[in-house]
Structure formats: C-alpha cells, structure tokens
C-alpha cells in the first residue's frame, strides 16, 4: 500500500508460471489484489486506476516485452511474480518504479492442495545423494548435516509439531533403501560457495548461451 500511495495509475502484472501454480500471483490473485488495492485506495479517499495483465513468464525478457504498449499509460508497476520477475521488469523499464507484491520465500513442493512446504534452498552442493533424497539443508531447522538434534520428537522437529524432522525422514528412508552406512559417514563441513556464499550466482550453459 505504502509503495503505491503516490500513484494514480498502476499496472499490476501477474505471471503464469510458478506463482500461478502456487496460487500467489496468477490471473486470479492479480484480480483479487487489484480489487483489494482499489478498495483500499478508495477507502483512503483517493482514487486509482489499476490495470491488470498476466504474462506467461515474467523472468523472460521476450514475455516482458508484452508490457511495452501498456507501460506508458501507467506511473508504476507492481509485480506479482517472484523476485526474478520484479527485477526483470525493473531492468526492462528503467524509468518506471517497480514494486514487489509478493515476498518470495522458498522453493517448495505441494504437500497437498493449498499447502506448500520448502524442499530446496539452492545450496549448490547437493547432499540428496547422501541423505536418501531428503534435504537436511532445506528441511532441518538447523541445517544439521550429521543427524537429528536432541529436539526430534515423534518424527517432528522441535520447532513445531507441523514440521517433520528431516532427519527422522532421512533415517526411515535410508533404512528402507538399505543405506544405513550412509548415515554413519560423517558429512564434512559444507562448502557454501555454490550456495550463495560467494555472492550472486550465475549459471552459464555454454551450449545454450549466445
């Protein structure tokens, strides 16, 4: 709200990829937010015009080009994509303020309808091969790499009953896989460089990059 206060015409941009799938920034949520913002502004005694548009993918510049005909009519853009989309729009339209409408939190999977849980932190040095396909970095509250802490109770984490103990899961899985020896090996201290420890990351696929 604070972001858009000074503006009379804004463009609310959704993204039809990940944020649609997780019901955070697709066409529907764009509609809901547009209505909500409109009402909030009306209520504060001001007026605002909110245009809605949903791109196929906000993190690809070609799709972002779709906004060109619309961009001049608005004073600011609000993006309902993940942080990537927000930044892509900012990159493309240098003189328009762009605001994030979402707080991008994590990479996750659907546990069931409407429930998403974190699965990966993009650490860049995948342990999954050692841990039965369950990531202790993303899913253990303490990122323990060598087994559960003393707070593991009945399969859940000490931080709360609705969080599974990653290590309890790993252990079950290793047992089922007959890979108990994987547990006994000590996982050495992790090299965090691929995980963002050495600043913003970049991946270049030589075969695809031009």
């Amino acid at each position: 709200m604070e972001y858009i206060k000074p503006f009379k015409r804004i463009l609310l941009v959704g993204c039809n990829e990940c944020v649609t799938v997780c019901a955070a920034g697709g066409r529907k949520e764009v509609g809901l937010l547009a209505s909500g913002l409109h009402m909030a502004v009306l209520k504060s005694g001001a007026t605002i015009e909110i245009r809605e548009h949903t791109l196929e993918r906000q993190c690809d510049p070609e799709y972002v080009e779709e906004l060109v005909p619309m961009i001049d009519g608005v004073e600011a853009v609000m993006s309902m994509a993940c942080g990537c989309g927000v930044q892509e729009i900012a990159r493309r339209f240098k003189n328009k303020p762009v605001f994030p409408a979402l707080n991008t939190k994590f990479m996750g999977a659907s546990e069931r309808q409407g429930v998403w849980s974190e699965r990966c932190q993009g650490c860049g040095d995948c342990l999954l091969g050692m841990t039965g396909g369950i990531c202790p970095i993303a899913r253990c509250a303490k990122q323990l790499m060598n087994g559960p802490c003393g707070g593991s109770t009945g399969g859940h984490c000490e931080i709360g009953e609705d969080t599974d103990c990653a290590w309890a899961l790993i252990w079950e899985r290793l047992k089922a896989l007959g890979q108990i020896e994987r547990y006994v090996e000590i996982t050495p201290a992790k090299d965090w460089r691929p995980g963002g420890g050495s600043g913003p990351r970049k991946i270049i696929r030589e075969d695809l990059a031009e």
Partner: protein
Amino acid sequence: MENFEPVIVAFCCHYCAYTAADMAGSQRLTYPANVKIIRVPCSGKVDALHIVKAFEKGADGVYVAGCLEGDCHFKNGNVRAARRVESVRKYLEEIGLEGERLEMVTMSAGMGYRFAQVATEMTEKIRKMGPSPIHLALAGGASEARKAANI
C-alpha cells in the same frame, strides 16, 4: 447517506439456497428487497474474485448460501465455500472492510422461512453497520461527477 438502504448480493446454490428462495416466494414470506440473488450451481463455484468484485462495485454486504453441511450435491462444495468465505473475510479486513459484511450461510431446499430469515437478518445487520466505505467512496465520487456535469 440518509435512509441508507444496503445492497446485498446473495450467491445462492441452485439446489438448496436458490430453491429455498423460490420456496420463500411460493409461501409468500416477505423479506427485504435489498437482497439480490445470483444463482450458481454450487456454493463451491463462488469465486473469491466475484465476492471481492461485488464489494469493489459497491456491495454493502455479500453472502454465500449453500446446502446444509453434508447435503452438498457436489460432495463438499459448501465446505470449500465456507473456507473460501473465511479467507476472503480476512482479506477484506486487510483492506479495511469489516469482515462481518461477508457471511456464509447454509440451508436446505425446503427452508423457505430460513431464506427469508437470513435475508432479513443480513439486511438488518448491514443496515446497522452502515454503507460500506467503498460504496460511500463510489457514491461520493459519483456525486462529484454529477456536480461537475451540472457546471
């Protein structure tokens, strides 16, 4: 906003609530004309967006009326609707609208009296609450526009 007459949108499921509304008609039960019914096949069809849009257009109250719990003709559309109404209520609160302007009610097809009763109660409640701030803002804007036109 003197003599405030609220406008209330009732999204009614075809099988129960809409039928109950017809039943109220055939029993000649009167209720306030403020309630306008939009028919949907199931209360589970009522989109959060449609509820929010109704408020954005100036509705003073909205309710979603479905079948009694366990009676949904599509298994559990009414339960979904109830959850959705709950979440839209929170959203409305965030925006600064009273969540009580939105309700979920259930009734069976035979409950004409209940339909009339709900319509009456809802109208009374909203009347007491006064116009929705959006309704006021829109009306204010419109009156300004009218003034401008006169000049």
